[in-house]
């Protein structure tokens, strides 16, 4: 089947299930993304300025475009998006600037069944279109977040691990640092302590490069109060590394995780996790703690659909309940979506 036919066939399945094919604005105001996400997105945006100096960008990603469309045009209720269009991003010499994106998103639905429905729909449409047997890999990022919460770590380290779960290389660097370095450099500590005592006597509201003296001293005191031994750090690194290796059938996942909880005396809040109860039509189901590490905005259920024969990724997606707020919504709006790996389908 030719690539265009694949995309048309897949979109037809989505339309049958009530999804509406939408096309999005090609150009978006850069500040919508930059002000909220910082430089990480900015550097990949293809931007330009108009004569008034206002910066605009070509749309970098269609999930973001769907969210912006929802905020601008739909505003409330449930909307089911389907799309096949182009997104434009800098690739730093690795790939083409233009990416074909085929996907679907459900925004605004609080129904917990949506997760299983969208996975079933994507899997079914892929099977019918490509005639290939598939395997669904699942995870819920809340299991990882619960694990981190129950570890004996200073809060700042817990936040670090949560913030950087989606960046596997940097995450490994953090684990290494946890098991080797100390948070305080003793050689400079004595010098800083003198400055600390001086600063104690100063006006606590005074700002130094945007930070009040009070804020600086409080954090300094907190660092001293929360020393972390190398031995504890090594043990915690071991727990996290072992957790990220869990890979088993979905049937055995709950039991495996319960054993893990007992072994390391941690609480994974498994009673709050829905993926164990999903009713999925595909019987090839794998649970893996290491998936969902590709996008910063995932917040709960994450999935990948691969071919059974050669583990080729056909689709991936997940829940991103906090992205809408990042893009400007006043409150959290539930959302879940999936993107078809278009290059692997057409090949």
């Amino acid at each position, binding site marked *: 089947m030719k690539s265009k036919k694949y995309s048309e066939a897949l979109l037809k399945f989505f339309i049958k299930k009530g999804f509406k094919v939408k096309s999005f604005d090609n150009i978006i105001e850069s500040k919508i993304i930059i002000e909220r996400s910082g430089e990480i997105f900015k550097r990949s945006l293809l931007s330009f300025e108009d004569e008034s100096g206002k910066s605009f960008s070509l749309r970098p990603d269609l999930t973001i475009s769907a969210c912006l469309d929802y905020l601008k045009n739909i505003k409330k209720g449930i909307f089911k998006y389907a799309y096949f269009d182009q997104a434009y991003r800098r690739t730093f010499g690795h790939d083409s600037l233009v990416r074909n994106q085929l996907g679907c998103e459900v925004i605004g639905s609080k129904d917990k069944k949506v997760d299983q429905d969208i996975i079933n729909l994507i899997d079914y449409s892929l099977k019918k279109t490509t005639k290939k047997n598939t395997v669904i890999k699942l995870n819920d990022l809340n299991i990882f977040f619960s694990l981190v919460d129950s570890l004996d770590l200073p809060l700042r380290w817990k936040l670090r691990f949560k913030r950087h779960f989606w960046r596997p290389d940097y995450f490994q660097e953090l684990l290494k640092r946890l098991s080797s370095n100390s948070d305080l450099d003793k050689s400079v500590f004595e010098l800083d302590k003198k400055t600390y005592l001086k600063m104690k006597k100063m006006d606590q509201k005074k700002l130094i490069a945007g930070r009040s003296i009070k804020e600086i001293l409080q954090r*300094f005191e907190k660092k001293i109060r929360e020393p972390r031994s190398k031995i504890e750090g090594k043990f915690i690194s071991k727990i996290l590394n072992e957790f990220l290796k869990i890979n088993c059938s979905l049937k055995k996942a709950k039991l495996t995780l319960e054993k893990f909880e007992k072994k390391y005396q941690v609480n994974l809040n498994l009673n709050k996790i829905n993926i164990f109860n999903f009713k999925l039509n595909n019987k090839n189901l794998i649970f893996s703690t290491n998936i969902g590490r590709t996008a910063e905005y995932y917040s709960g259920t994450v999935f990948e659909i691969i071919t059974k024969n050669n583990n080729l990724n056909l689709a991936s997606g997940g829940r991103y309940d906090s992205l809408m707020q990042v893009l400007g919504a006043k409150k959290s709006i539930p959302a879940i979506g999936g993107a078809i790996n278009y290059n692997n389908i057409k090949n």
Partner: protein
Amino acid sequence: MSEILKIGLPSKGRLKDETFKLFQKNNLKIKETDRNYLSSIKNFKPNEVVLSHAREIIERLSDNSIDVGVSGYDLLQESLPGIKKNISIAKKLSFGSADLVIAVPNAWIDVQTMADLEEISFNFKGKTTGKLRVATKYPNLTNEFLLAKGLTQYKIVNSLGSTEIYPFTNQSEIITDITSTGSTLKANNLKVLKDGIILSSVACLLVSKKSLKNNNKSKIIHKLLNQIKKL
């Protein structure tokens, strides 16, 4: 392509002085020019010396309007991939060594490492600036380094000079800058983070790759490079 070898050399400062000394000690006599930005080497094959800003030398090597040039490794690395790919490093020289570093105010005693910086960057969210602002003349290298060290919540402020005062004039909170001894940073109440060295730089003798593809030009370039032995 012209057979006159075009050489780009720094037009001012210590980099210019050291480059001229380098050519002199390798018996390459550059004509005295006073305030003229065009010169030549008296005792070498037909050539033209263009005195330019070190950043411009990189650009001109890339678009092949000069064949050989002296500039900083930092400036080469800062340039965009499309420019960098057209230039090759012929020799690293023995002068112009300096580090591009991340510096924060001395009074930030709770911030010693990049991990500390990453953590406090989230505290700027509710503040008027909205993001931790990083002033720099090196936005590309700074971005690459900060993102590799886990920082995402920051904003680059492009600076053209006197970057060291930015944190104390509400133009930025921290800076990245090039420093050889660290004395200017110290004098401005700034400290370098423990793991805050972005890049160690040195002056380099650079060659335009396109010139190397031209046989005649390539021969002249290699003759020049062979003559510059005493670094």
